[in-house]
């Protein structure tokens, strides 16, 4: 596929290795499809690669599955869906937010919190997995896309 690339076993294992290192995730349940150089999609459908190639002969494939992670330098940043889909496996680099912080987070604000960690951390409030933040010395950087943000209250 020219636009989308289905990762082979070795390439998928490399992604899983990184996910394990960062968040304790051991396996991604489905095919990993790469779009461009950095966006990773999880496809859980049961079409074989051969059938997908046949489908591509029929029509332009815009997307397969759900965007779940982005490659940033040598690390992976999970999207909201990535963190939700893989939540049962995530057991490290999780940061628990209180209700007020979770609301600020979902508004797209960076949080002035010293976490003691550096790099990507999974943001969580009770049972809600809220994507990934980037922890630095003084704050947690926010990557919630605009169309998924809570609106600021008026007045």
């Amino acid at each position, binding site marked *: 596929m020219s636009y989308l690339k289905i990762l082979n076993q070795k390439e998928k294992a490399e992604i899983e290795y990184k996910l394990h290192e960062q968040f304790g995730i051991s396996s991604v349940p489905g095919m990993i499809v790469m779009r461009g150089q950095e966006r990773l999609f999880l496809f859980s459908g049961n*079409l074989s690669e051969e059938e997908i190639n046949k489908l591509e002969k029929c029509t332009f*494939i815009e997307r397969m599955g759900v965007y779940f992670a982005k490659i940033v330098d040598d690390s992976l940043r999970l999207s909201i*869906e990535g963190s939700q889909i893989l939540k049962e496996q995530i057991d490290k680099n999780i940061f628990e937010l209180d209700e007020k912080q979770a609301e600020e987070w979902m508004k797209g604000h960076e949080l002035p919190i010293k976490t003691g960690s550096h790099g990507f951390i999974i943001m969580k409030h009770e049972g809600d997995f809220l994507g990934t933040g980037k922890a630095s010395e003084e704050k947690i950087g926010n990557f919630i896309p605009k169309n998924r943000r809570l609106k600021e209250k008026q007045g």
Partner: protein
Amino acid sequence: MGSKREYELKPLFLERMKKLLGKEINSYLEILKKPLQNSIRCNTLKISPEELLSRLRNKGWEIIQPFKNHPEIMIIKTDLAPGEIGRSMEHLLGYYYVQEIASMLPILALKPKPRELVLDLAAAPGSKTSQMAAEMENIGTIIANDVSIGRLKILASNMERCGATNAILTKKEGIALCKRLKQEGFLFDKILVDAPCSGEGTLRSSSATAIMWNPKTIRSLSRLQKGLLTSALEILRPGGEIVYSTCTHAPEENEEVVDFVLNEFKGIVKVEEIKLPIKCRSGLTTWLDNQYSKQIEKSCRIYPQDNDTEGFFLAKIRRIK
């Protein structure tokens, strides 16, 4: 979800609706003035109906679940500010989809199952496609197609928010796509043809429909719908099922289309009974000077006044060989 009627219905449209409804035209016109109920569908790919219900009630929202066998379907009874349902944390996290009840019915009729190969021929904006993925528990494959790149982007965004991982999104004109899929040997277990239509059933939410309504459009849409349904039937495996649906009352876009394919595929397809949790009326077998197959009585007409929803039409067709 809806606004009060602030438009005039065209005389020919009214005349046709009187023909369809007889004395009931008054209750039909009355309900058009009433705003739609705020209905949502719990996205069971991410949260259980019980958990969502508890969260929404904790926000102070009064919620009812109108159908015992479909706890995922909920109606919000509380008066909320415009847009509030789409701005909640639960919506942003993909825990529910704002969807009119009539629009949930095609998937209840189609009953897609895990491991099936399903085609959604006119998929955007994705309410029914994401409902399909939930019914299939993200197992099996959905090919979700739309002809417009703009609408496809909305579909992609909604599918992502819902965490629907088993869908492949494609862009092609529907009839041409079916032809190519046939050439490549694809056969589907289930197909949804939720066809582009004149939208007469959406008058409670869209005044533009009343303004744009004209009989010429109905004729040209009917031709397109016949083409779409015929092409889709070509790639349905024997034993497979298609749901053909529209959000219009015009028989030319509904019964006439089904009658057309029954003639084109004589002895190969048949219309199946549909069981839905709301009041449905039988499909017509006569309209103006036309006679349609008796089988079409098994299809469903949904009128807004019957269930306090939008209007819809559904027919389920099985390929028997």
